[in-house]
């Protein structure tokens, strides 16, 4: 017991009560600062701030839910289309899927060289939205737009404006490594129509490809994230960019 009390007394981890360690002028100023800090804090409408924060968070949750449902329906429709095409082709006696179509599960370009070739996991393409040629330069002028809003704050961010590329690295709350790279490149991917996006998995994480217009596509790589988090961040990114058109 005595030992514990001693440790407690020598620790720095407390705010010195006025009068115990301080005396004279120091104690007076200490008390004045505490009183003024309390008075100033009492002037702030913390209850109002809390209500606004909860309201904004609830609105965001509802919006995410709507987007998730919409994308879910899109995925389901795309999956039905894949099944339909497969059945139709089987009936016609054709065993392959035309290269370059939205249902092509092959890696789309050189960006996919790191994918696990024996076990490619690719989702069907879904329509996300487009960014016009005229606006895309303006939109990505600072490249700051290439960070998802819900990217963890613990990640250190870097922007390469010339290359239209953003990177972030850090760890999650449990200390696991997280990396994020996003860039806009010139070109047209074989297996995506304009406005469509698809995701693929490799050994490190999830790739998202989005043909934002005829001449440019966006590529985002989420490493160390689970599928749900990666998808949510890509949706947030795409949603904001499409909204900003």
């Amino acid at each position, binding site marked *: 017991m005595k030992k514990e009390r001693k440790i407690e007394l020598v*620790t*720095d*981890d*407390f*705010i010195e009560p006025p009068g115990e360690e301080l005396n004279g*002028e*120091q104690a*007076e*100023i*200490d008390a*004045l*600062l*505490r*009183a*003024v*800090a309390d*008075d*100033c*804090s009492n*002037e*702030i*409408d*913390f209850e109002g*701030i*809390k209500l*606004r*924060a*909860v309201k*904004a*968070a609830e609105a*965001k*949750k509802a919006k995410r839910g709507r987007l998730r449902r919409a994308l879910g329906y899109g995925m389901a429709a795309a999956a039905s289309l894949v099944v339909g095409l497969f059945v139709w082709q089987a009936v016609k006696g054709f065993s392959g899927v035309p290269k370059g179509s939205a249902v092509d599960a092959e890696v789309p370009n050189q960006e996919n060289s790191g994918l696990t070739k024996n076990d490619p996991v690719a989702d069907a393409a879904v329509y996300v939205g487009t960014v016009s040629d005229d606006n895309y330069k303006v939109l990505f002028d600072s490249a700051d737009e290439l960070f998802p809003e*819900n990217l963890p*704050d*613990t990640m250190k961010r870097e922007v390469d404006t010339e290359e239209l590329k953003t990177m972030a690295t850090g760890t999650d*709350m449990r200390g696991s490594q997280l990396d994020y790279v996003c860039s806009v490149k010139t070109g047209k991917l074989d297996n995506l129509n304009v406005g469509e996006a698809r995701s693929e998995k490799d050994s490190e994480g999830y790739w998202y490809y989005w043909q934002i217009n005829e001449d440019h596509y966006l590529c985002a790589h989420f490493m160390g994230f689970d599928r749900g988090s990666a998808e949510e961040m890509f949706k947030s990114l795409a949603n904001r960019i499409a909204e900003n058109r």
Partner: protein
Amino acid sequence: MSTSSFDKIYSDYSRLVYWAAYRVVAQNETAEDITQQVFERAYLNMDKLEPLADSQIKSWLYRVATNLALDHVRHAKHEQLSDEPVGAEIADTEPLPEEELLKKKRMEAVRKAIEGLDETNRTIITLHYFSEMTVNEISEKTGISPGTIKSRLVRARSLLADMLKAEAAE
């Protein structure tokens, strides 16, 4: 997510978050907006925050508040910001009872004196008294040793006492 957990986190740390943001942006309204954004994120991430220890939650909130405040300053650097005088937001046009008036004057004088300190001392005073952070927590955030923080607190209090005496003598 438990609403009571969010309520507790808000009750325990809203003051810390507000003053952490205010220290960077020095504007009441902006600090309030940042506080709102920080707790909006906390609300959306309660499932991740709930299992964490209090010190981790506190540290996360402080970091998010500081990052958002720095982002705000970076984005606003090209804008013409109003040079809000210290204590302007607490000015009141209504006549006040004498006691209230004295309190307001005291608040304004102390805040003005704090603004007159150099950045390091101002940061330490703000974090210790307004954000209610311990010496060790300030040391962790600023990278300054706890012993130096303590001696700077003593020095800053002496400077403030001198400033307030000079102000009273005018």
